[in-house]
Each structure stands twice: as structure tokens, then as C-alpha cells.
């Protein structure tokens, strides 16, 4: 059995930032396990620019952003095993993994950081009736074919869902000579970043059809077309609005699912809204010594925030390894209501010495809504924002001092929406 102070599962932006932070905080033996052939995670196929504006203050491509961390990992004594898949986390923080160099690995760790990222919601989960023709795939799969393998997965394309990957691929496929007919979005608003809607659709002349979905796929072998329809406020197709659109490819960008198979197997408690672990302000999960960060914890829209969150987890794991805290912590629980779908972290140690950033997402598009953080009658934060949208993650900072002084051990983040 191999022994490490810290095992990081996943070598994407989250895993690398967490490992580097832990190193910086004095953790000695660190191992990163990555299932792909290289470090970098999904950034490796995101060859467009737009990464790093917040964190580095400059615009980088995905591989460039990743490389800044890969360089640091390589320069450090952090060990890395690529092409390595973790199969299980057993009791006593024992990690079972496999690859084609070492065979089966059994690794004991003082602390573990979960940084497995997320996956795209597949066609099957969407319930789109129709044929099983080829040419229906997630936008991320198409992105890999185009950017990594160098093949075109289609020529005449309809994109369902206006998530960021879908928007990025609309532009990418157009630049590669494909005709992107339209992007259909079930909701009355896009779930993607505003800047992507402008740069990837408007600038490319690709129509975005809101409140519209694909209700049938056609074609026996290769996809030949789709039927689209407008939907009502309950997201049900409106009869009479059906329209046939000829296409050979349907790309899906309809949501991301944190990859928490290992987390669930390890018996860690999952938040039903984020589909990630419930964590405290150090990103420690319900299992002591196991931390989570990045898209496996909550789906982010900017890698910059992933890096930030992962550094918190890295520092948290380092503190855990140094102190081996015992006994129960006292927590302030955090939740969202009135238009706030979720808040991360879900718990804060009452004795936290650092200010805490609460990340959250809203349920709808709101204009001039007020963000309020309160505990009972006590208001800790209150600020109006001109626009809030589900596609953009928000945060507020709460002072450590304020948390320590709370009478009621509950914090609520909510919106006050002006009446129309």
C-alpha cells in the first residue's frame, strides 16, 4: 500500500489548484490521480479564449490557462499519475485506482480532495422521442472530435440548449465551415454567459430560439432532421408550432452533472440541488478529511472561480493534515430562498477566522433585485443588482466576525424582487 498525506482525485484546474495550494501550505507528500492522458482536464479541449480574466487579469485559451498550473505542478515535488482511474474510496481514506503502468493501486491518504469535474447530460436523460440515428451527441463530445481528434462531426447543425459549451461550439463549428442552423433553448432565457451569446451567436449570425425545443429526431442511420416546437410557460410543446429543420447533427448542451459516483460510494452527503457534496467553508465534506472543489462540487461558469474555490479546499486539507482536528464542529447552516436556488458552502464553522465568500445561483432572470443575507432579524448584507441570471454565478462576502456573533445558527441568502 502506498502512503500519501494528500491524494487529489482529478488533475483538471480544480485538482491542480488544490494540490498547489496544499503544497504552498506545507503538505509534504501529495499525489494527483488523473484519468485522462494529460493534466488539464476539460480545458485541454477548450481552445477558445476567455479564460483567466478574473484570476490572471488577462485573456487566455483553455490550454494556456491549464498550462500555467501544469508548469507549477511539474516544477514542484507533487507526484502525478495520469491515465489512472480511481475505482473506489474505501474506509480509512484508502483509494483504489487502476492504470496500465502500475496495474492496481492501493493508496492510503490522510486527506483526499475530490476534483473529478462534471459531465454533460446525455440524450437519454432528455427524453427526446425519435430515432437512434448517429449524429446526436453532446456539445463537449463534438468539441473533443473537432479540437483534439481533428474531425468534423457534422455539417448542418442544430444545437439544443444554450449552455456555454453549446454556444462555444456554435461558433467553433461555423468557423470550421459547418452551417449552424439555430440554437434552441427550452427556457425563456439562456443558461450561458452573456458574453458567449454575443460573441458566439450574434456575431456569427446564428439565431437563438428561446422557449423552443426539439420534440423529435428523424433519420434511420444518420440524423436527417429534427422537429422543433415552441413551448408554453410550463415548458410543454405548443401544438401547431412544430417546424421541421433539416440537419445531420444535433448537439446537446443541456446541463452539466457533477461526477459524484465516487463521492456517493464513499457515503458522503450530497446536496440535491447542486448534486455535489455538502461542504463547510473549507470545502470539507461530511466525511472528515475528504474535501471537494471545482465542478464536482458545483457547476461553475468560469474556471477562475474554480481555481479560487480549489485553493480554499487545498488550504483546508493542509490545515486538516497539520492539525488532525477531532470532535464535532459547531456550524452555522446556510441556505437560499426566494429565488436563490442554492448556496455553497452549506455550513460555516462558528469559529471561522476568515471571511467567507458565499457562492450562489438564482432561479430566474431578475432585474433590480436586492440580494439579502440575513440571520433571523439580523441583516448581514444587502445590495441591489441591476441584473441577475441563472447562467451567472454570484457571490457575497460575509465577515468572520459577523459569523462568530450570530445568535441564530442559520444564514439565509434571498432576493427581494421589485414588483412590476
Amino acid at each position, binding site marked *: 500500500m502506498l502512503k500519501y498525506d494528500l491524494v487529489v482525485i482529478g488533475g483538471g484546474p480544480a485538482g491542480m489548484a488544490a494540490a498547489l495550494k496544499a503544497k504552498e501550505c506545507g503538505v509534504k507528500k501529495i499525489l494527483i490521480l488523473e484519468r485522462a492522458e494529460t493534466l488539464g482536464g476539460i480545458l485541454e479541449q477548450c481552445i477558445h479564449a476567455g479564460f483567466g480574466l478574473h484570476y490572471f487579469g488577462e485573456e487566455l485559451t483553455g490550454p494556456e490557462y491549464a498550462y500555467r498550473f501544469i508548469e507549477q505542478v511539474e516544477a514542484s515535488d507533487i507526484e502525478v499519475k495520469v491515465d489512472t482511474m480511481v475505482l473506489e474510496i474505501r474506509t480509512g481514506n484508502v483509494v483504489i485506482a487502476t492504470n496500465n503502468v502500475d496495474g492496481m493501486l492501493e493508496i492510503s491518504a490522510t486527506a483526499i480532495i475530490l476534483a473529478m469535474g462534471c459531465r454533460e447530460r446525455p440524450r437519454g436523460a432528455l427524453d427526446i422521442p425519435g430515432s437512434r440515428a448517429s449524429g446526436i451527441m453532446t456539445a463537449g463530445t463534438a468539441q473533443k472530435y473537432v479540437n483534439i481528434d481533428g*474531425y468534423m462531426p457534422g455539417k448542418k447543425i442544430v444545437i439544443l440548449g444554450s449552455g456555454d459549451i453549446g454556444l462555444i461550439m456554435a461558433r467553433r463549428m461555423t468557423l470550421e465551415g459547418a452551417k449552424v442552423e439555430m440554437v434552441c433553448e427550452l427556457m425563456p432565457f439562456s443558461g450561458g454567459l452573456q458574453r458567449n451569446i454575443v460573441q458566439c451567436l450574434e456575431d456569427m449570425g446564428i439565431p437563438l430560439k428561446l422557449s423552443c425545443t426539439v*420534440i423529435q429526431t428523424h433519420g434511420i442511420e444518420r440524423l436527417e432532421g429534427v422537429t422543433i416546437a415552441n413551448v408554453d410557460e410550463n415548458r410543454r410543446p405548443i401544438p401547431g408550432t412544430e417546424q421541421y429543420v433539416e440537419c445531420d447533427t444535433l448537439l446537446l448542451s443541456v446541463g452539466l452533472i457533477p461526477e459524484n459516483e465516487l463521492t456517493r460510494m464513499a457515503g458522503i452527503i450530497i446536496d440535491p440541488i447542486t448534486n455535489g457534496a455538502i461542504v463547510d467553508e473549507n470545502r470539507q465534506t461530511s466525511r472528515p478529511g475528504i474535501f471537494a472543489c471545482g465542478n464536482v462540487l458545483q457547476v461553475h461558469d468560469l474556471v477562475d472561480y474554480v481555481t479560487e474555490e480549489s485553493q480554499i479546499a487545498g488550504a483546508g486539507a493542509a490545515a486538516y493534515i497539520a492539525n488532525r482536528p477531532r470532535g464535532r464542529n459547531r456550524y452555522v447552516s446556510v441556505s437560499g430562498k426566494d429565488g436563490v436556488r442554492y448556496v455553497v458552502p452549506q455550513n460555516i464553522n462558528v469559529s471561522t477566522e476568515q471571511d467567507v465568500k458565499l457562492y450562489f445561483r438564482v432561479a430566474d432572470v431578475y432585474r433590480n433585485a436586492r440580494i439579502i443575507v440575513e440571520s433571523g432579524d439580523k441583516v448581514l448584507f444587502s445590495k441591489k443588482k441591476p441584473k441577475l441570471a441563472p447562467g451567472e454565478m454570484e457571490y457575497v462576502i460575509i465577515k468572520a466576525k459577523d459569523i462568530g456573533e450570530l445568535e441564530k445558527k442559520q444564514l439565509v441568502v434571498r432576493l427581494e424582487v421589485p414588483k412590476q
Partner: protein
Amino acid sequence: MQYDVAVIGAGVCGAMITRELSKLNLKIVLLEKCNDVAMGTSKANSAIVHAGFDAEPGSLKAQLNVQGASLMAYYCNKLSVPYKNIGSLVVAYSWDDMKTLDELFERGFANGVPNMEIISQEQLRTMEPYISDEAIGALWAPTAGIVSPYELTVAATENAVLNGARVKRNSGVFDIEFKNDMFSLSTATGVIKAKYVINCAGVFADQIAKMIGDTSFKIIPRKGEYYLLDKNEKKMVNHVLFHCPSKMGKGILITPTAHGNVLMGPTAIDLDFDSKLDLDTTIEGLNIVKNDVRTVIPALSTRNCITSFAGLRAHIAGDNSDFLIAPSKANGHFINVAGIESPGLTAAPAIARYVGNIFHDIAPQYERKESFQTTRPAPIRVNELSDDARRALVEKDKRYGRIICRCEGITEGEIIDAIKAPCGARDVDGVKRRTRAGMGRCQGGFCGSKVVEILARELGEDMNEITKFGNNSNILYERTK
């Protein structure tokens, strides 16, 4: 090429019959119009071993069902196919239903179904804790089970190949001539000559029979739509759960699959004679399944659905809906194996033996081989191994240490085995059916492109020549700029 026997259609019956006849000293070819075996009804059905209480006593269906159910364990063991003898329950919700259970029991008894029992609400609850409160009793048939139908087809084909049979894929038959006691079959890959023909063409069996002038039956494609749920719903159902039957079939069922998912369906919609390629799922059909399932296990959530699909049953038009397994009246050297709808999968092992007997009657000149090999080498299933066995295997061949499909934990070694096997996989869906790579909850989102890459490498083709399931189901076009 000249053969003694040509079997048309590599579904579960065609494959099992080819295997059965490869026990004899003869040259046999299995002709399949698709890029792989098990591409019709055999890949999209309920994957159930029926106990045998549904069919009319005295019918061929009843006889071959009960025989097949008792043979299935033996065949799956010999051929290394996932099979579980979990038993079935027909659930009753009213006193009328309870009366139907009595009738089913009587019918099962007449058919020779062993060890059935009518059980109380309480017993039912113990066996199925999540069953609807409205359920008041059930018919328990312990001989029922679940099997992986496409793996059975693949395994039987591989075993037949090991015993000397030829398989020709992409070889759909479009014309048959009979001259001087010899059939000439025009196929997409050339003319095949054979002394005997066995028609296992599923929903197309009527069209094949018509080529020799046999118009005695017509096949209606009867569509059934299904949902497949994630493995995390596994605890919700322990046995094959049926409704009380209706005229259109056994109704919608809920069952675990041999691999631990939950399957629910099918609907039963008769299509036109010319809609035999229509495998579209429909909003209406899927809604029927969704709503029906709620009445059986209210807590079962289709939110955990990982895919939906449709299959076509080969239903013979007319009132008598028995299997048609007999030499054709138009030509005694041509055996029809037609109308093999439910319980066709269950019956398949018995159908193979039954056809073997018919063949012996019409062609007694062929003798048994001495060298028939009854088993196929068991495929390596890495995630079923113990830690130690797995370690030892990876030590020997590192490719079994490299995971390609994350969801199902399938390794590169297993995928290469599936491609290199006798009658191996040639397309992405073929790899999926043989190894389960891409069958999990991400449905090939991550591993799909890696499987394309491995197929291209192992078959010596370019990635853009690799298809999802043959013909024009290409995945990639030309290279990027």
C-alpha cells in the same frame, strides 16, 4: 460459395439455430443484413425469461416457452451470458385481477410451469417493498428470470463460428432462386448457394418467404417502447413485475436487467407492414410507459432514465398468433422460423433444438460431428474480478488496467477482446453490446470518441470510417481545416 445450409437473420433464433446445426457435419452460413448480429428484435426487447403461463396450452409457444425457460440456465452457463433466475410476479390490483391470476395459474399448470404460487399482499410486500399500496396479491413464478439478449446472440454466434459456421454480415438477401435442389440467394455481398434455407428474418420473414413463393403469412411489426433507468434505481425492484395480461400482450412490465439497471416497457402499437425500420420512440408511447409504471411502483422515478428505445416484435397477422416453425408448404427445403414474438427470447434455446429435429427429419443425411465444442471462452469482465485476480490480470496485460468507459468501468483490454473475437464488433454499438462501454449513465459522452479511436486502430481504418451501427451511421466526416 456453396453451403449445405443458409440461415437468414442473425437474431437470437438465427444464431442459436446456426449453433445447433453446427453440431452436424455440414457447411453452414449465417447471413445478416446489418453490420452486426442482434440488430433487430434481439437487441430491443424486455430481456425476460418467461416462466410460461401466458401461452395457450397446446400451442407451440407454450411448449417452447416452458422448455426454453428450463434450458436457459444451461445455455447461458455454457455460453457465458449474464442470466439471473430472479422469478416473476404478476401483480393484481382488484378481485377481477385475482381471478385472472387463478386462470394464469391454471394455464401455467397445464403448460407444465413448475412451482407457481399465488401469494398474499403481505408476501408481495416482503418481496417488493416499493410496490403500490393498491396491489393485493400476485402470481409468483420462480422459474422466470432475466438474460442479456444481445449477449446471448453474440455468444451463440461466436460458438457457432468456433464450430465451423461462417457469418456474413452486411449480406441482406434480396432474391432467392431454387433450381436443381439448390437455392441461390442474391445478397448484398454476392450470391450464396445452399441446399437448405432457414428463414429467421424476424419482422422481414414474410418478405423472405415470399421470395420462394410462400405467401402464407404476413408479419406485422408491433412496436414496443422502453425506458432504461440508472443502476441507482436498482433497489426499487427485485423481480420481473407484470400487470395482468390483456389482448395486446402481457402489458407493461418493470424488471431489473441482468446488468443491474431497471427496464420498463413495452407499449404495443401495431405499425403498417411497410414500417419495419421504424424504431422511433414517441411522446405518446413513452408517456404510456411512464404513467403505467407509476401505478406499480409509485416511487420509481423516470428522472433517472438513461435512455429510451423502441423494438419491433414480429407478430403474425390474423387470429392465430402462434410461432410458425415448419418447412414451407412452397418448398420443403425451406424452414420458416417466423412470428417469434414474446416469449421468443425465452424459447430460443428450445426453438434451436426444435428446428434441429425438423432439419434432421428433412435432411437425415447429415451426421453429428465428434468435435462439437459446447462452450465459448468466457469474455474477461474486469470489474467482476476480485482485487487479487484483477491485479494478476493487469500484471499480465496492462491494457486491462486502462479504463475507457468510466461509468461501467470497462477497460481497453476488454474492448480489444470484443473487436478481436470471432464475429467481433465492427462499430461503436457493437462494442457497447459486447462490453457495456457506453451503456452507462453518460451514454458514451466520454468514452465514445475513445472507442472510435480504438476501433479505427484495431480494424486498420480511419476514424471517420467508423460507424455507430454500420451503413450510413457514420459519426465523423472529413478532417477539420
